[in-house]
C-alpha cells in the first residue's frame, strides 16, 4: 500500500514539475501608471511579450504613442514607425525580469534564489512566511537587505532596504491567476522612497496568454544597429 502511494506521489510530482516547466511564453496587456514625486503622472498602455528561451522583453506600446521597446541583454531599444530611435543601457536583464520569474515559477522568492543575495532568516507569522535576504558583501553594491513575504507559495510583498536599513522601495503582488501551471500576479503596487518624498507605481496585466503558438517573430524582435 505504502509503495503504491509513493509510486503515485512520485508521478504526480513529476507531472506537476513537467507541467510548470512547459510554460515558456507569455503575452499580456499591460498598464503602467506612475505618480512622480512632483505629483505628475506617467501613463503607459500596451502589450508585453516574453519568451524565456529567446530572452527579449518586447513592449508594443499604444499609449501615450505607438512605440516598441525591446529589452535585450543589458540594452533597451526604442522604435517608432519601425525605425530605431534610441538605445540605452539597462541594469535589468530580461532573465531577471518578473516575466522570466513567472515562467520559471521563481516568483515566490522574487527570483532572489538565483541571485547573489542569501536567505539568512525565515520567520512564520500566521499564514505568512517572511524571508530576509542579505545583500552581498561587495563595497560598491548599492542596495541593502531585501525582506520578502509569501503566502501559499505566492509572493505577497517585497521591501528593499538601503545599506543602513532604510526602506527604498515596497512592492505588493496581488490578484493572482493560475494559468498553465504558473502563478501570475495581475496587479503590482509599488512605492519608492526618496528621503521625505515618494513616488507610486501600479502595474496591471490583463488578457494573459501563456504559450501562444505561432507569431514567433513577435517574440523575437530583431534589433538593429542605429
Amino acid at each position: 500500500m505504502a509503495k503504491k502511494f509513493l509510486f503515485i506521489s512520485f508521478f504526480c510530482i513529476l507531472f506537476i514539475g513537467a507541467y510548470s516547466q512547459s510554460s515558456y511564453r507569455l503575452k499580456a496587456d499591460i498598464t503602467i501608471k506612475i505618480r512622480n514625486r512632483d505629483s505628475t503622472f506617467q501613463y503607459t498602455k500596451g502589450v508585453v511579450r516574453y519568451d524565456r528561451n529567446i530572452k527579449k522583453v518586447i513592449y508594443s506600446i499604444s499609449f501615450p504613442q505607438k512605440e516598441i521597446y525591446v529589452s535585450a541583454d543589458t540594452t533597451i531599444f526604442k522604435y517608432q514607425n519601425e525605425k530605431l530611435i534610441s538605445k540605452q543601457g539597462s541594469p535589468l536583464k530580461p532573465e531577471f525580469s518578473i516575466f522570466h520569474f513567472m515562467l520559471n515559477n521563481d516568483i515566490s522568492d522574487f527570483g532572489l534564489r538565483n541571485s547573489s543575495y542569501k536567505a539568512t532568516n525565515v520567520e512564520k507569522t500566521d499564514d505568512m512566511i517572511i524571508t530576509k535576504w542579505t545583500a552581498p558583501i561587495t563595497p560598491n553594491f548599492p542596495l541593502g537587505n531585501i525582506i520578502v513575504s509569501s503566502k501559499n507559495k505566492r509572493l505577497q510583498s517585497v521591501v528593499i532596504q538601503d545599506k543602513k536599513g532604510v526602506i527604498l522601495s515596497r512592492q505588493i503582488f496581488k490578484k493572482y491567476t493560475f494559468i498553465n501551471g504558473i502563478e501570475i500576479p495581475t496587479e503590482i503596487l509599488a512605492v519608492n522612497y526618496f528621503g521625505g518624498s515618494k513616488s507610486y507605481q501600479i502595474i496591471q496585466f490583463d488578457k494573459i496568454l501563456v504559450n501562444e503558438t505561432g507569431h514567433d517573430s513577435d517574440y523575437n524582435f530583431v534589433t538593429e544597429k542605429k
Partner: protein
Amino acid sequence: MKQTILKSFSLFLAVLMFSFQTFAFSTKTSTAITENEIQSVIGFDESEIYTAFAEVSDLDQYLAQNEGVTYTDIDQENSTLLNGISSSTTLPFSASSDELVLGIPSFFWGCVFGWVGLLVVYLVLENKEQTKKALYGCIASTVVGVVLYVAVFAAAATTTTAYTY
C-alpha cells in the same frame, strides 16, 4: 614538552571557542528579522497607493472604452483628461524619471563633485541617462574652470606686459 603542547592546544581551543561565539553573535544581529521589518513587509496600507491615482481614473475609463487612442488623439478631443500627465512612455520597474541621488540633480553632482559625483550617480542610480547628465555637469565645470584659468592667466600676463612698458 607534553605540557607545552597541551597548553598550546588548550589556548587554541579557547581562541576558537571565543571566535565562534563572536561570529555567532554577529551573524544573529545582522540577519535577524526585527518586528519593524515584519511590519514593513506585511502591514502596509495599499489604499494609499490607490488614492494616489484617483486623479487618473477618468483617463483609465476613457482608454478602456477607446482602445488604440494616443496622447495626441486625446489632446485634440478632450485635453482635460491629460492634466498633469506626461507624454513620455515608462516601462515597468524602470527608474522613475525624477529619480535622483539625495534629491540633487545629477548634473550638479557632476558639476560640483567632478568625477566623484559622476561615480556616485553611476553606482547609486545605475541609470545611463542620469550618469550622462552627471558627465555633462563634470564637463561643464571643467570647461568653466579652464576658461576661468585662461582668463586669469591672460589678465595676469596683460598686467605684467603693462609693467614692462
